């Protein structure tokens, strides 16, 4: 257990972050730079004072690890929650469990992605169009976080856009539950999601690029395997590397029995009834980053978010049903494990490429340790807060159980999503599960994913 100097109180940290923002200093870390520590041993403890690594220290003993945040004590940490999470806890019966801050950075990344991030640090820059290239060249990015210490909002967005799932290939099996204003689960879907990068690869023996996909960033598909009326509905997004361009969108609708090409600018609407998930939401970066504008960093500081402890490998099909609680009927929220994240970068962007988007701006809280969006809210055209898209991340390790990668390292991924439309009071929760109907299993870097799930032929085949 590292020893921390207590001379740095909460006010010190607050003043430090304000000073950092005012001076435009964008390096991560308070006591020392964060990334050299991650590069040396993965231990981030020396980068932050204790009050930024311990909720007990931060709240001066009012809360501690193992405690539960609920309506009775949420005011203590109101400033560490996004406004919708605060609303959920203070008014809708949500509970959040406090767990220790993760100080071992290797638990915050897939192994290969972290290695690529460390190997390639300092090699990225934005070209004149705003796309990420290898510094001094026009080559596409070569893997890992391109900007470990982003100097502006666009660089920060690049970190969450270029590689969503931080694996070269990810297949997610998802149980979806959609809760209506009554508090009942009104809709349920089983969703499969597959994404495969063609550049910025980190686990490919052949290097960072996949031959034959020169101008493409990724293929991504989403398809429904249940219930019956949506089974077979499939969409394929083909992302260009140039982030100014919209993806190509192909869809298979069971009624049409064929794949058709669709316009791709309707990214702020649910794909199926009752769900509050939009294509634009994915990873808080569901649209090519240059189709949005006015990216900016508006703040830094500590925050609460889910970075550990949510993988339920001991439960059948990784179920989180035992964690469900809150809302009008006790069916709305997962009891998430939040930790004090010592430093987040608060970003905003506006949908400048979507003049009729119902969204006026989005605000994202990026954890400086691994650059994932631990909180994300959007505002409507009137500037009123509209929706939140909360992703909980976790290493897939629980006691002696673990989901291991090809080299024996525990996998890492998102574990749950809470998507809440507070204006319509509709709530969607996703649980990443082991498998869903249709034989789809959560897998990373699996072979043949491209042929099986990511071509026009594939989505035709998935339909029935």
């Amino acid at each position, binding site marked *: 257990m590292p020893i921390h100097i207590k001379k740095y109180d909460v006010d010190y940290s607050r003043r430090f972050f304000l000073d950092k923002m005012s001076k435009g200093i964008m390096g991560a870390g308070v006591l020392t730079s964060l990334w050299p520590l991650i590069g040396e041993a993965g231990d981030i403890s020396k980068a932050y004072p204790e009050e930024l690594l311990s909720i007990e220290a931060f709240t001066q003993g009012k809360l501690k690890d193992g405690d539960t945040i609920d309506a009775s004590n949420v005011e203590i940490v109101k400033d560490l929650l996004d406004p919708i999470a605060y609303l959920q806890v203070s008014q809708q019966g949500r509970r959040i469990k406090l767990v220790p801050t993760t100080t071992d950075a290797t638990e915050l990344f897939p192994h290969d992605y972290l290695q690529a991030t460390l190997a390639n640090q300092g090699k990225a820059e934005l070209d004149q169009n705003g796309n990420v290239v290898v510094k001094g060249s026009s080559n596409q990015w070569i893997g890992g976080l391109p900007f470990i210490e982003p100097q502006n909002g666009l660089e920060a967005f690049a970190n969450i856009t270029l590689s969503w799932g931080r694996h070269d290939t990810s297949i997610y099996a998802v149980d979806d539950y959609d809760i209506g204003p009554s508090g009942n689960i009104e809709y349920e879907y089983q969703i499969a999601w597959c994404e495969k990068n063609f550049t910025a690869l980190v686990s490919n023996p052949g290097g960072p690029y996949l031959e034959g996909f020169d101008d493409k960033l990724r293929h991504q598909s989403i398809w429904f395997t249940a*219930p*019956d009326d949506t089974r077979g509905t499939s969409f394929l997004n083909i992302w260009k590397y140039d982030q100014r361009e919209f993806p190509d969108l192909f869809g298979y609708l069971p009624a049409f029995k064929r794949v058709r090409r669709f316009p791709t600018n309707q990214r702020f609407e649910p794909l199926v009834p*009752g769900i509050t998930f939009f294509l634009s939401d994915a990873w808080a970066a569901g649209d090519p980053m240059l189709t949005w504008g006015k990216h900016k960093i508006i703040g830094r500081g500590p925050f609460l978010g889910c970075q550990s402890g949510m993988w339920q490998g001991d439960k059948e099909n990784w179920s989180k049903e035992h964690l469900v609680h809150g809302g009008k009927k006790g069916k709305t929220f997962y009891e998430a494990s939040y930790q004090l994240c010592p430093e987040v970068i608060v970003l905003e962007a506006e949908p400048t490429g979507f003049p009729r988007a119902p969204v006026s701006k989005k605000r994202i809280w990026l954890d400086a340790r691994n650059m994932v969006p631990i909180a994300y809210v959007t505002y409507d055209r009137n500037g009123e807060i509209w929706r939140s898209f909360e992703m909980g991340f976790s290493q897939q390790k629980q006691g002696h159980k673990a989901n291991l990668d090809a080299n024996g390292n525990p996998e890492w991924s998102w574990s749950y999503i809470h998507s809440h439309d507070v204006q319509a009071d509709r709530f969607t929760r996703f649980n990443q599960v082991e498998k869903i109907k249709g034989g789809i299993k959560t897998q990373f870097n699996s072979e*043949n994913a491209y042929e099986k799930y990511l071509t026009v032929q594939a989505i035709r085949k998935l339909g029935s």
Partner: protein
Amino acid sequence: MKKAKNLTKLPAIFSAGLLAMPIAHAVEVDVSGFIRQEMAYSISNDQNPMNRGSAVVTGTLPDTSGGPDFVKQDFDYDNDWNMMATRAEVNFSIGISENVKAFVKVRGFYSANVFNDVSVESGAKDVNQFKVEHHGKCASIFEVCDDDFMIDLPSVYIDYSKDSLWVRVGIQQIAWGEAIFFRVMDTPNGLDLRRHTFLDLASEEYADERISSPGIRVSYNLNNNWEVEAFAQMFQPSVLPQAGTAYSVINNPFTIRNDIGFDKVDDKINAGVRLVGQLGDLGLQFMATSRHNPDPIFKWQAGGQTALDPAFAGLGYGDFSSQPFRSTGADGAIGAPGTGTLGGVDWMTVAHMSGVDGVESVNILAREFDFIGSFLAGQLGLPGPDYATSIEDGRLVLDAFSNAIGDMEASIVPIYASENVFGFGANYIFYSEPDTWLDQLVVRFEMTYTPDKKFTNNMSRNFIEEDEWVTGLVLEKYRRFSDNFPATFLVFQWMHKSESDLSGRHLRFLGGDANKAPSGGEESGGWDAVSFAIQQPLPGLIWRLDMNVLYDLNGSYLIQPGVRYKPNKDWTIEGFASFLDSKDSAGALQPLAWADEVTMRLTYQF
């Protein structure tokens, strides 16, 4: 009650397919499905003119051959409900191994006894809605059916995929092209119109109607942008609504001899190949199919009513039974006395409603059946080869026939002509200034060319044979009109056919009536129709509003507003109205112009 069964081959074929696949791990079976009540209530004062109970021509009819007026009984049948059906579909998704999956869909459809045609002898009668003499007594190969129900297997297939190869073997639907509702490149399968014709929700296209059959479909990704696909599939004809049913388009006295027509092609294989790919932002498709057209063309069949041969033997025109007509009042008729076509007005009216030139069809009967040719020349003084040259001549012939034998019936044989169809399609998405109408406008274009395509020629055995071009243009656009509502989906389509209308009736014979010869449509350069569809989901997609309009430039239309409500996972409620009309018999939708109705569907899924 005897039930037609054709399921005996199914277990053997499916089991053999499963056994042929390597079993790598436990087979996983997911079961899902739904049960749905479907109801269509007539909101029109009109009834189907093709059925005897609501025949278009009734009452006192003049006899221009000099006899007393004909009297065709008017039953004035009034059905309020066009459909009251219960449908159940059960789907089995079967995971066999990493590369092998199977899928089985079982569909059951029961039609309650809410629609009756008339029996001349005994009043109301139940109608046969499903029995068709294709495969045994049913339409598709694995189907159990009777007058009021059918259970079939729209899908029973095994998928094998490895790397760039995908093979689907078994009973399957195949849909090609991108145009919706207008079938340009969608040539592989015919349509089964027995349940609700094409009056289901237009936005569902032909999901329920496209008729499947056993086949093999192979697809191979040549590279990241191009895919080649081929199929070979057992020939399966389209199925028209049965005579006497709510949506029948065949005039009641005429019997389609599916048994004869289909027997000639029941062992045929339709095949096709297409190339699909992207050339930059341009999507392209090229296709060719070699097929027997599942949509039939018709010719007369000798009636075979030998009971009247002696009565006409003295005229020296040959055997009465060698020509198509049968007297309903004599032995050997299928229908009861009084169910047939009676006189020239009845003939001309119904012929023109069916896309048949009432006068020319008389001439064809005379040319192709010696008995009739001799009768016209000898009895009526109308020599060939152009026996009847006017509506009056035609009416005279039929009046004389009816005078001689009373009301008449006949049989026609469906022919499934072989043809090759070549097609080309392209799609392109325009990008422009955001928030302009051109931005993200999807344009699709399709075109097919069928050389020497055969068309019904007034039931002649010598079919019309002409090259046909079919083109379709589709414009699609998502447009958000309000911050408070999801984007509106707008689709405009235009279809052009050079020789025939929507259902394949040659334009030459459209537009006539009891007093007027067909005006045709060839002079105007072909048949054109436009459609416009609007789909407006409400926030959350729980409610969806639809408006579909099809306008045939020959003067018919379908307007279909609808609403869909999905309150939860289990239930879906849909309501839509169909308004149809046609200014005359030239309209492609004229056969269903009477069918204004409101449809409700209540679905529970599991």
